[in-house]
């Protein structure tokens, strides 16, 4: 059996890759996908701990995370579409309306 630590290390690696993606990419859709990657990394931790402690609670939380991610994707992509209509770009450097 693979120890639970290995799954946590894998989860940490995936989360870090997602965080670096948010930092280095300028395309808002790819940044969005990096956020999904981080959510999935956390889901892996939840499932690994659920298996470790024989508790279904971790898997229920993953269910909720997926629901929230779906809602977030729908609203986020709608925002991207409406921003693209006004400015014809998905580059975050050009989308500086909220910057002072």
């Amino acid at each position, binding site marked *: 059996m693979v120890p639970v630590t290995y799954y*946590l290390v894998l989860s*940490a690696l995936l989360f870090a890759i997602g965080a670096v993606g948010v930092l280095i990419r300028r395309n808002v859709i790819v940044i969005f996908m990096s956020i999904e990657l981080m959510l*999935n990394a956390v889901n892996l931790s939840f499932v690994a701990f659920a298996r470790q402690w024989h508790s279904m609670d971790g898997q229920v939380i993953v*269910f*909720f995370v997926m629901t929230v991610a779906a809602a977030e994707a729908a*609203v986020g992509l709608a925002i991207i579409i409406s921003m693209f209509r006004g400015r014809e770009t998905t580059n975050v450097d050009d989308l500086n309306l909220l910057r002072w």
Partner: protein
Amino acid sequence: MSLPLFLVFAALLVVSALGVILQRSPVRSAMSLVSTLFLLAAVFVFLDAHLVALLQIIVYAGAIMVLFLFVIMLLNLQSEPRETGRVGFRLVAALAGSFLALEVIQLTRAKGTVAGLGMSGAVPEGFGLTETLGERLFTHYLLPFEITSVLLLVAVIGAVVLAKRHTS
């Protein structure tokens, strides 16, 4: 799950996750993310989370990624030009990412945590199946479940309002 099999899946996962952030074409990034999600679903099966693995494929790789691809193609996004003059920033980002990963890895090795703990033995009957998860969801987590339905309703209305063309 045997260790060599786990290592193969872990390597594939890291490679396809790197593909998500390093590909210049958004469509390729999205396809890398789809393969990452499928590989994660496989890992979930090995962790006895059968329903979650299924939901991962249906909801994530199915619904959410189709939404992403749909928007990418709707906006007709091209590959980004190769970036120049931001090498320093990328280096700092990579360093920060490695530091974050190392920090969390170190945390799993700390005393009094899961460090050195082997995976626990066989799971109880029905672990990870729809019946057990549903029972937990509809008893102990009933209120969060109902709130989730309101959240989805708000998201649907919000998406329609935001993406609607304003005619005035």
